[in-house]
């Protein structure tokens, strides 16, 4: 156990964590040079397409230190984006130390600080690493000052490296061995293994990733999952070496996987403790803090026949994304579905995409909402994240909505237009910082609801891609809220309703009617779309029907073909939701919030 080191690489997004992991992996020759590819730990297609890490990944590195001893280092590469911070916090629970990367040119940023705090909460040893020193714009001295002032760490202890150029890698290995303490724990105590991640495999059942705190586990053992009480016989244990590598046993201090034919998906809970059936631990490990979702949206199967399949997919998906929370939901328009909470919009987008790609689901997602707070006349307070449950307006004494503090980094020339955008989105309390020549940091307090949909897209288009945006939730503030309903041919479509600020309601309604007009194709009949508050129509649009849909000829040889075409179109109908007699495509439910339709 003395020769084990467990550590995570943490940093702000893009500061080079996965690239540093690459160099560490290559140093230990874990992978053939021919099979190597950049950011090798970013294994998911979506990660590679977007160039960001979404899931934490563990890899076990064999390292022969200068002191002549052989070490096994467990590296966990973590995501930097704030929406995936739950991945970071769970990784930290398996570690004794972290490499805190700081980009030598960007310096300390929001997630540098947030992740540092998370590491300190776990009492981890922190090794600051200044990365990207090869950049011409690298300013090591300034970054050292920031490490000292803003992070409160000893700047002299910071290592210098260029993950890209492979500079400073050996020093990092030595620091890991020397500075990070070995895991504590007792092999002779009853087994306690913390489940920090999992993945469902249709052949082998749930594959559990865990950190062994006490005891040991090997093939043939009967284990118990403490929160559910489920028991299974261990089929295989092992460690992560880019592939799963079977081992005879996992012992206290190690990070690895357990396969035990766990076919019942709900038996596995992330944060649960695994122990031995015969010699159980007296109590489980503390587990993880509960996730606090920030945005909410409902997921429905496109075809209501697929509800069960969606339910199963979500359950399996959640094993691999513990940050998703969901519960049953139902809508008059869309039938049975699930209300889901996400850590942010990127998270929401990733969940949608992974459900579609990895689990083959066709889903409808409703427009995202934040969680509002209403004080009712009887003094009770209700939290509402689903417009369907908007309280009776006559009973509402006070409405509040979450506010964020947005930090927007832009080149000077865009200050005007970006200020305008922020004001439109009800931004207040603006401040400006000048972090470097030509660059401006705009700080605004804004309702979260105003940024959850397309704020970032708008910002990027206004600044031609040069703007970056970061936020933290600060508090709830009183706000004049109303519920905006959307009617299609006079019928209220509950899944299209949204809670909006009264002053923005008309604008929102007009935009929603326009977006729907774009999204809903012309049909056989005229379609009227209306936006209404409490029955009062405040916006409308009309989709004219098409007037000709017939083939000129239909004789003996055409009938079969024509019927087959109808049968094919009928299948396509399943991808639409029929409300009244109007077919509404999947995309429309999300599009109501889009504010620019060009």
């Amino acid at each position, binding site marked *: 156990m003395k020769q084990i080191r467990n550590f995570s690489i943490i940093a702000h997004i893009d500061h080079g964590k996965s690239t540093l992991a690459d160099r560490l992996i290559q140093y230990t020759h874990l992978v053939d040079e021919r099979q190597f590819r950049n950011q090798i730990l970013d294994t998911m297609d979506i990660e590679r397409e977007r160039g960001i890490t979404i899931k934490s990944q563990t890899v076990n590195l064999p390292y022969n230190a200068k002191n002549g001893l052989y070490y096994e280092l467990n590296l966990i590469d973590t995501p930097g984006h704030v929406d995936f911070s739950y991945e970071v916090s769970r990784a930290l629970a398996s570690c004794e130390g972290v490499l805190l990367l700081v980009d030598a040119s960007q310096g300390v940023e929001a997630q540098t600080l947030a992740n540092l705090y998370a590491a300190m909460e776990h009492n981890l040893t922190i090794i600051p690493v200044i990365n990207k020193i090869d950049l011409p714009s690298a300013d090591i001295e300034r970054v050292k000052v920031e490490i000292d002032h803003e992070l409160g760490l000893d700047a002299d202890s910071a290592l210098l490296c260029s993950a890209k150029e492979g500079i400073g890698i050996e020093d990092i290995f030595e620091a890991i061995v020397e500075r990070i303490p070995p895991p504590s724990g007792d092999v002779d105590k009853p087994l306690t293994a913390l489940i920090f991640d999992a993945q469902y495999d249709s052949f082998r059942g749930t594959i559990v990733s865990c950190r062994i705190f006490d005891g040991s586990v090997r093939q043939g053992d009967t284990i118990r999952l403490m929160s559910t009480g489920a028991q299974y016989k261990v089929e295989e244990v092992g460690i992560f070496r880019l592939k799963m590598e079977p081992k005879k046993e996992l012992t206290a201090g190690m990070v690895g996987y357990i396969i035990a034919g766990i076919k019942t998906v709900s038996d596995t809970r992330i944060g649960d403790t695994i122990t031995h059936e015969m010699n159980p631990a007296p109590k489980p490990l503390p587990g993880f803090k509960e996730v606090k979702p920030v945005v909410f949206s409902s997921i429905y199967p496109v075809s209501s026949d697929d509800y069960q399949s969606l339910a199963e997919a979500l359950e399996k998906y959640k094993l691999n994304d513990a940050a998703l929370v969901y519960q049953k939901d139902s809508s008059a328009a869309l039938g049975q579905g699930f209300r889901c909470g996400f850590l942010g919009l990127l998270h929401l987008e990733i969940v949608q995409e992974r459900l579609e790609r990895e689990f083959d689901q066709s889903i409808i997602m409703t427009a995202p909402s934040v969680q509002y707070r209403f004080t009712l006349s009887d003094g009770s307070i209700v939290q509402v994240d689903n417009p369907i449950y908007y309280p009776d307006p006559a009973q509402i004494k006070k409405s509040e909505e979450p506010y964020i503090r947005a930090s927007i980094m832009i080149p000077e020339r865009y200050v005007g237009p970006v200020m305008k955008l922020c004001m439109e989105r009800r931004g207040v309390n603006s401040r400006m910082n000048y972090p470097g020549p030509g660059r401006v940091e705009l700080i605004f307090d804004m309702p979260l609801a105003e940024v959850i949909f397309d704020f970032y897209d708008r910002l990027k288009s206004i600044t031609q891609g040069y703007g970056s945006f970061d936020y933290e939730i600060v508090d709830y503030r009183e706000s004049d809220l109303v519920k905006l309903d959307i009617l299609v041919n006079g019928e209220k479509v509950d899944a299209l309703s949204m809670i909006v600020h009264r002053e923005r309601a008309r604008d929102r309604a007009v935009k929603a009617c326009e977006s729907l007009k774009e999204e809903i194709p012309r049909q056989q009949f005229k379609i009227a779309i209306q936006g209404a508050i409490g029955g009062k129509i405040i916006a409308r649009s009309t989709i004219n029907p098409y007037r*000709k*849909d*017939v083939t*000129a000829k*239909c004789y003996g*040889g055409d*009938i*079969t073909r024509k019927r087959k075409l109808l*049968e094919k179109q009928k299948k396509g109908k399943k991808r639409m939701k029929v409300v009244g007699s109007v077919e509404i495509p999947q995309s429309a439910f999300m599009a109501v919030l889009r504010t620019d339709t060009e």
Partner: protein
Amino acid sequence: MLNRHHIEILMETVCRVFPVTSGAEVTIEANPDDIDPVKIKTFKEHGINRLSLGIQSFHDGELSFLKRRHTSGEAERAIILAKSHGFENIGIDLIFAIPGQTKNTWHMSLEKALSFEPAHISCYALTIEEGTPFNLLKSQKRIKPFSEKKEVSFYLHTSQYLRDRGYIHYEVSNFAKGPKYYSRHNRRYWQRKPYLGLGPSAHSFKEKDRWWNIKSIKGYMDSLARGIKPVEAKETLTEEQIRLESIMLGLRTEEGVDLGVIASIPRYQEILENLLLSGYVEIKDGRAVPTVKGYLMADGIAYLFS
């Protein structure tokens, strides 16, 4: 085009193999450039009593756009010839929505056709289908297809014009001077009555079965030579498919659809209401019958019932 000899063999065989009712409708389809006095006489002699002529247009520019071999003059002469030989049941096919066609040129074709007082007129909207030379021209922006609005207006105008002159608009593209001039042959398709098609790729239908012959002439002949039925494939329709076909075909004709077929399914009731409100169908003698506006939407409406 079949020559005189072919026609003789064909008609003699048909009469030998099948019992032919007296007064049966015997139609031949021909293009104006196929017609000459000898042929017309052969038709007559062998009991052919209805002539369907692929005139398409009486405008030479449009005819050459459509790559037809005949001119408007030849078209006229063909009709006159047929009439002079005693053909009184003549059908004229015309095409509208030809790129470049104007209300005037279309009107001229209609007028000209009417001047011969044909028993039957078919007016087909030109469809530019994928993979056709027209579609290539369209994608190269070298021709400008009719807009939906323009096509609809031509169609409605045509229907009105012919009805004003005593024709019955009995199917999407077909008009007859009276019920006795309805194309008996084609109506069998729409009414889902049995039919037998002979020749390559011809379709046949009986009870719940539909089958079709091998498409290639060589394959068809080889099969016959080996004494095997030259059938390429056959389908047996389910009850649901039968219902869908009767709606799909019924909506193309003035007969419409029996309300009983629609009433059987609750969801259909709502569709029917919408169709009535939009003026796509009317109720007549317990049937939902398409209006002229409804004819234009026959496929879209059938989709609603699918």
